[in-house]
C-alpha cells in the first residue's frame, strides 16, 4: 500500500521552512528570553524565598507563552507571501508536489522551529531556576545557622518549602501545554493566510481570534447555560463554534503553583490540539487548492 503523500517531500519542505525562518533572524528572541530569565531570576531579593522563585517562574512562563504565540502568528503569516514574493512557490509547485504537501511542509517547519525554540528556552529557564533554588536554599540554611535554629527538622522544612517552588518535571509539562497552544495558533494562522489578501490582515485576524479563543470558555458557558435571548445565544454559539478554545491549554498558571499534570490532562490537550491541526489543515488545503497564484 502506498501513502497518498510523500513523507520525504514534506520533510524537505519542512527543513527548508526552518532554514527560511532562521534566515529571517527569528530566533533572536531566544537571546531576549535569556536576558529576561536571568533578570527575573535575580530581581527582588527582598521578597521571601518562595516568592522569589514564583516570580521567576511567572515571568519565564509568561515570556514563553508570549514568544510562542507571537512566533506562531508572525512566522506563519510571513511564509506564503514571502514564497510568492521571491517566486519560490512557483518553483516548488511546478514540480510534482501537491499543494497539500506544500502546506504540510510549511506547517511542520514552523512547528519544528517553535518546538526547538521552546526546548532551548526551557533548558535556559530550568538552569536559572535550579541555580536560584540552590542559592535561596543555601541562604535560608545559613540564616537558620546564624539564628542557632538549624536543626535537622527545620532544615528539612525549609527544603520542602523552597522545593515546592523549585524545579520539577511537572514544569516541563507546562511547556508542552504551551507548545500545543502554539501548534493550534500556527495551524489557524496558516488557514487564514490561505485566503487572506495581505500579511497584515493575517496577523491581525489571527491575533483577534487567538484573544477571542482565550475567552471561549466564557462564551461557551453563556451559549450552553446562559439565559439570554435567542439572538445573543446564536451569536455566542457562532463564536464558540468558529474560535478555538485556547483556555484548555492555559494550565501553566496552576502548574506554577504545584498542580500535577495528569496523563489524562495531557491526553485531552493532545487530542484537542490534534483535532485542530487536522481540521485546520483540511480547510487550508480546500482554500489553497483553489487559490489563484
Amino acid at each position, binding site marked *: 500500500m502506498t501513502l497518498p503523500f510523500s513523507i520525504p517531500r514534506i520533510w524537505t519542505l519542512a527543513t527548508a521552512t526552518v532554514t527560511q525562518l532562521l534566515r529571517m533572524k527569528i530566533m533572536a528572541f531566544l537571546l531576549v528570553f535569556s536576558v529576561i530569565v536571568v533578570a527575573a531570576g535575580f530581581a527582588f531579593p527582598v521578597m521571601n524565598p518562595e516568592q522569589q522563585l514564583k516570580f521567576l517562574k*511567572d*515571568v519565564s512562563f*509568561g515570556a514563553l507563552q*508570549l514568544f510562542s504565540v507571537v512566533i506562531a502568528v508572525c512566522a506563519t503569516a510571513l511564509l506564503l507571501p514571502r514564497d510568492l514574493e521571491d517566486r519560490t512557490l512557483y518553483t516548488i509547485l511546478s514540480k510534482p508536489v501537491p499543494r497539500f504537501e506544500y502546506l504540510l511542509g510549511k506547517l511542520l517547519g514552523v512547528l519544528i522551529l517553535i518546538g526547538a525554540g521552546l526546548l532551548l528556552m526551557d533548558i535556559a529557564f530550568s538552569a536559572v531556576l535550579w541555580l536560584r533554588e540552590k542559592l535561596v536554599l543555601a541562604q535560608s540554611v545559613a540564616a537558620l545557622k546564624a539564628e542557632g535554629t538549624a536543626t535537622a527538622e527545620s532544615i528539612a522544612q525549609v527544603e520542602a518549602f523552597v522545593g515546592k517552588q523549585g524545579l520539577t518535571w511537572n514544569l516541563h509539562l507546562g511547556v508542552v501545554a504551551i507548545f500545543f497552544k502554539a501548534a493550534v495558533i500556527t495551524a489557524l494562522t496558516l488557514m487564514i493566510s490561505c485566503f487572506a489578501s495581505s500579511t497584515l490582515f493575517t496577523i491581525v485576524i489571527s491575533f483577534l481570534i487567538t484573544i477571542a479563543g482565550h475567552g471561549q470558555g466564557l462564551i461557551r458557558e453563556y451559549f450552553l447555560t446562559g439565559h439570554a435571548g435567542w439572538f445573543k445565544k446564536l451569536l455566542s454559539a457562532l463564536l464558540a463554534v468558529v474560535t478555538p478554545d485556547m*483556555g484548555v491549554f492555559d494550565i501553566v498558571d496552576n502548574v506554577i*503553583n504545584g498542580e500535577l499534570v495528569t496523563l489524562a490532562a495531557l491526553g485531552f490537550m493532545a487530542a484537542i490540539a490534534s483535532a485542530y491541526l487536522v481540521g485546520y489543515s483540511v480547510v487550508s488545503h480546500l482554500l489553497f*487548492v483553489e487559490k489563484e497564484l
Partner: protein
Amino acid sequence: MKRRLQALVVLLILGAAKLPLEETATQHFRTTGLLSAPLSLSLRENLSQMGFAASLGGLRSLVATITYLRAYREWENVNWAKVDGLLQLTTSLQPMYSNYWDEASWHMAYNAASYYENDEKVNAFVREKLAKEHVQRGIAILLEGLRYLPDDVRLWNSLAEIYERRSKEPRQAAVAYLQVYRLTGNNRYARFAAYQYVQTTDPELWKKAYELLRAAYEKKSQRTPSLIENLKTLEERLNIPLMKRIPDPRPKIENATIEVKPGR
C-alpha cells in the same frame, strides 16, 4: 467557490464537534485543579484593559505577580487602601496560591492595624476603631481564602494566630488551631487549641481543654511548662479530684516561689 463552501462546512463541523470535547476537558481540568475558575468580569473594572486581556490570554499568573509587586510598592508608601485593593486583585487572579491570601491578611491585620494603633494624628477612639477594622479585614481575607483552599494549613494557622494575638477571640482561635491539628496531626496544635480554650469563660470549653491537655500530658515529650501550668489551672477551675490531678511541678520552698515561664 465549491471548495470554499466545502471549507466552510468542514470548519463548522469541526467547531460543532470540538465543543463537547472542550467542555469535558475544561470540567476535568477544573476538577483536578489545573484550571482556575473563569475570570470574574468585575475584575475588568479594577484591572487595566491590557491587564485584563493578558489575564484572559493565559498570563494570569504574570499579571498577579505584577499586581503583587505594585502592592509591595504601596506598602513601602504606607498606602493601606491601595495595598488592600491590589492584593485583593492579586488573590482574585490567583485564588489557589495560599501565599497571596496569607500575605494580604498579614498586611491588614498586623501592619495596617499596628500603623493605625500608633497613629498620633487621630484620637484614641478612632485609632482603636481603625485598628480593629483592619484586624477584621485580615480575618475576612483569610476566611475568603479558606473558601478556595479549605485544607490549607498555612491559612488556618494564620487565622488562629490573628484570633489569638490580634482580635483576642480565644474560642475562634482554638477552632482554627484544631483545624491545623486535624490537617497536620501535629500534637502541639492541639495544645495551642487547649490553651485558647483556657482563656475563655465557658466551663464546657475548659472541659475540652482539660481533655486535650490531659491526653498531651500522657506523652512525656509534651510536658512543657505551659501545659503543666494550664493543666493545674484547669484542675482548680474544674474541681478535679485530688487523686486524678497531676503532680505539682513547683517544689514547696518556704517564702519562695518559682515562676514558670510561659513558653510553649
